């Protein structure tokens, strides 16, 4: 069943040319005729060049930005211009993790308030009380629950990012849009968060739009992958198709450029590891 569908979505940004207030305007097409679907319980990954319009697409999908042209449908309903109740329902069902961790957290609020805010915005009482609920959420994303009274500026970048993730998971959304949600996390926490996301998908049927640069992560989590370049989707297919038989040139370059740990070192490490296990 299709949960979200973007149909030929285009976004133009109006920027002012040089020369002050009265300068003529210039338009810049950030997203160009993008169409895709996300089904219930599915993860669609968007990869692509930096500046290719991934975040913009995500924000349009979350209805945080109005597309210049094209439509966004959610559960079969056109919500491109929705307001009021239907928009509110949409908001309850779709949560977003933002790319920029600090800017997306209100500097005046404690973590506890930030992560429980979606609940109160949607008029849901936090199960087990606000404090306990917040602590539980923080624990889930690997944050020290004792820090629930801290303010965002007192956290590290990766911790701030996890606050954003915890916030998105506070309510039970149908779709979570993760804009580089794990990029600032160290690999072990990253793995923990990804496992959490996958478990939620399994148990509660979450769908994800997962924007990432780390193709290894994408491979772990995505069922389908869209590759964007210069505002357009240049290739869209299942994970294996994209990773194993990329058709588009850009996709191929992308895959070829993935850095890897020196294979020789890695091999030696595994060897040492085995030696160590054997010796124990």
């Amino acid at each position, binding site marked *: 069943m299709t949960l979200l569908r973007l149909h030929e979505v285009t976004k133009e940004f109006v920027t*002012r040319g040089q020369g002050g207030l009265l300068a003529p*305007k210039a338009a810049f097409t950030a997203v160009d005729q993008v169409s895709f679907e996300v089904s219930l319980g599915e993860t669609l990954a968007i990869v692509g060049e930096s500046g290719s319009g991934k975040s913009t697409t995500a924000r349009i999908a979350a209805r945080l930005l109005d597309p210049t042209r094209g439509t966004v449908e959610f559960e079969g309903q056109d919500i491109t211009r929705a307001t009021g109740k239907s928009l509110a329902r949409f908001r309850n069902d779709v949560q977003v993790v933002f790319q920029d961790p600090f800017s997306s957290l209100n500097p005046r609020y404690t973590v506890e308030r930030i992560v429980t805010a979606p609940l109160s915005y949607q008029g849901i009482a936090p199960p087990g009380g606000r404090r306990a609920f917040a602590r539980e959420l923080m624990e889930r994303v690997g944050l020290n629950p004792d820090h629930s009274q801290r303010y965002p500026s007192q956290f590290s970048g990766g911790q701030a990012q996890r606050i954003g993730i915890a916030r998105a998971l506070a309510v039970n959304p149908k779709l979570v849009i993760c804009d580089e949600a794990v990029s600032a996390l160290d690999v072990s926490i990253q793995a923990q968060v990804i496992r959490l996301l996958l478990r939620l998908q399994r148990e509660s049927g979450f769908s994800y739009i997962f924007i990432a640069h780390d193709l290894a992560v994408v491979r772990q989590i995505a069922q389908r992958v869209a590759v964007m370049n210069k505002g357009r989707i240049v290739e869209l297919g299942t994970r294996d198709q994209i990773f194993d038989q990329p058709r588009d040139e850009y996709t191929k370059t992308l895959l070829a450029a993935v850095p890897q740990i020196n294979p020789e070192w890695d091999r030696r490490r595994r060897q040492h590891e085995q030696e160590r296990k054997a010796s124990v």
Partner: protein
Amino acid sequence: MVRYVLGRLAGVLVILLAVCLFTYVIFFKLSPDPAVMICGKTCTPDRIDSIRSMLGLNQPLLAQFWDFLQGIFAGRDYGTVHCPAPCLGYSFQTNESVWSMITARLPVSITVAVGAAVLWLLAGVIGGLISAIKQGSWWDRSAMALALTGVSVPNYVLALVLQYVLVVKLQVLPFPSAPPLTENPMLWFESYLMPWTVLAVGYACLYARLTRANVIDTLSENFLRTARAKGLSRSLILRRHALRPALTPITTIFGMDFAGLLGGALITETVFGLNGIGKMAADSIAKNDQPVIMAVTLLAAFFVVVGNVVVDLVYTALDPRVRVTST
């Protein structure tokens, strides 16, 4: 943008019209009959009637209002006298053309406003900035205590005390007489020094406190850390990176305050005997000189409304994030 400005200017006209009409109703309907006051101590109903007809007060309100508007744009006739285009009527009290009264007094009010504004901006912003940087220091505490004192002391008190101390006791300044700048620049400056100061004190205190609060907010932003990491000089960091975001909201207030002052500093002008718009307003209220009240109101409204348009334009120019969404 051009369209936006034009739209706003059209809005200005509408507001001024509304202000006009409202003022007209308040002062011509609810206020005492000017004819009776002109009539004086020994007055007969006949005389009142004749004065009313002479002033056009016997016409319906809207007709009077229409005449008034016409006067402003096209001029109008009062009996035998023709009053040319920007015609705001004649004072009930002195029979002077209100327009010439305004043009004669405006330079004084502008001088008062500009001088005071320069003073309070300098004092307020610099004081607030230093306070913010030295938050919690003795300088900060004393500057903020001073600011509070400044706000708590009504400016007529300040005016009189200043005059008593500086002019009467110490005799370092003359009594303000406000000659034209060209005649005697020194005396001009000395004359305006006290009015400027008195007016500036209250505003300076407000601005100092606002600047302080905003700068403190800004100082904790991450981009300030970036600026420091670039090795910029302290003054550049403060001037450019801390002040700009801190002062952006202050421009709003400044526009309003300054525009308000152009429409006359009632109390200060009265205390120091400066013949500006403010004093004219005070006099006209005391005497219920309606044409003058109307004109003063309109003038003040004009400055404030235009000031607000300028403020909005400046604000969108100052904050790039706002700019993009505004058009």
